[in-house]
């Protein structure tokens, strides 16, 4: 049992300690909520000192340990009660149904969309970081160099938060909903120093840079997989149409032997196409999860 906190910073520190090991996003939420309450409570009792207000907190807001427990329990209970049954929990034991069950999982479609989107976001992030870093370096000798660099880092953090929100929307995995809690209030210079020392600042930039190669890779996998599958499924129908005298003008010419064999191999190519597309959906879902793990490692401060 900790001694009763005497100041808001002390309270927040104890709350953070009590939540040690929980989801970083949950810890951030809890700290923000507590700070909102404690500061509002202090502001509404201007006649009392911070220590006097804090004395009563345990009986109104709750002691840090109590509040920590409330966050952990609520996250588990209310979420479990409200969450619609996810496809994962109704997964059948039949491997065939499990394989094709991916089509009823909205996360697979969203992840596929994310794979296409990452080419765009990857290019934007990359250009942003490279421009920001080189301009910061170039302007370093001028007086606006430092403010420029700080603004650059600030925007990078906003991008990182946005990326987290995007990933949460796609995979349903919890990501931070707010910027990292800055911790106890300190001077501007101390904060700048902390920011530079903070490994997360640099891993965030690394993440944004890495999104270009990753984005290209995801995009290529998604487009190749989709076109291959679509070609295999649609191809036999094109051949059939040609048999029926449909003229495709130019471009698509089916070789004579293929034309003859088509009716025989058509079922196989269609099946193969469906198989490839289903595998792509599974890959997309897997990539979504991997990307979340990757984003957590680089964008979310561990133990916060």
């Amino acid at each position, binding site marked *: 049992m900790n001694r009763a906190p005497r100041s808001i910073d002390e309270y927040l520190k104890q709350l953070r300690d009590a939540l040690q090991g929980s989801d970083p996003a949950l810890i951030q*939420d*809890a700290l*923000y*909520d*507590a*700070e*909102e*309450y*404690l*500061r*509002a*409570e*202090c*502001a509404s009792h201007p006649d009392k000192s911070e220590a006097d207000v804090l004395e009563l907190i345990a*009986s*109104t*807001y*709750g002691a840090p340990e*109590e*509040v920590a427990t*409330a*966050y952990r*329990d*609520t*996250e588990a*209970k*209310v*979420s479990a*009660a*409200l*969450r619609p049954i996810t496809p994962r929990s109704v997964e059948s034991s039949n491997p065939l149904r499990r394989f094709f069950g991916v089509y009823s999982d909205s996360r697979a479609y969203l992840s596929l969309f994310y794979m296409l989107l990452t080419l765009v976001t990857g290019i934007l992030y990359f250009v942003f970081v490279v421009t920001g870093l080189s301009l910061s370096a170039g302007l370093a000798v001028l007086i606006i160099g430092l403010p420029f660099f700080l603004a650059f880092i600030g925007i990078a953090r906003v991008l990182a938060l946005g990326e987290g929100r995007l990933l949460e929307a796609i995979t349903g995995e919890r990501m931070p909903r707010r910027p990292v809690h800055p911790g106890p209030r300190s001077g501007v210079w101390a904060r700048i120093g902390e920011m530079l020392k903070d490994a997360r600042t640099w891993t965030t930039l690394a993440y944004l840079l890495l999104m270009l190669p990753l984005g290209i890779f995801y995009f290529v996998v998604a487009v190749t997989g989709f076109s291959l599958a679509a070609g295999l499924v649609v191809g036999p129908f094109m051949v059939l149409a040609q048999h029926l005298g449909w003229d495709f003008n130019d471009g698509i010419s089916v070789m004579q032997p293929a034309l003859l064999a088509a009716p025989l191999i058509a079922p196989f190519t269609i099946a193969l196409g469906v198989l490839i597309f289903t595998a792509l959906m599974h890959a997309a879902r897997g990539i979504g999860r991997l990307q979340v793990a990757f984003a957590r490692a680089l964008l979310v401060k561990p133990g916060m």
Partner: protein
Amino acid sequence: MDDSHARKFQKDLNAGLVALVLLAVLNRTSEDLYGYEIAKRLQKANEGESLFKEGTVYPVLRALSAHGLLTSRIVPSYSGPPRRYYRITAEGRAVLGDWSGIWVQTRDFVDRFIEGVEE
């Protein structure tokens, strides 16, 4: 001894009731409220020993919001970190209707035994 039994019972009850009360509070007001305001309204309505700690209100608000029963927006504040204002959604109203029905049923059922009306 008895006190700890009472506390545990209260805690178990609150698990679902806090969410119901919060929906009801936000349903009755036309303005958006932030966590502290809601906590104070509950404290005022509840005379004497507090039924639950105000700190337990916040995580429930977040959970409700995450499930689309409430919407929230963030407004900067002079006295501390930005405040998150909550408002009930149409889905929240529907859920509140369902839950209120369940609550009334449950309350009547329990009362029947406690008051011993049922033979």
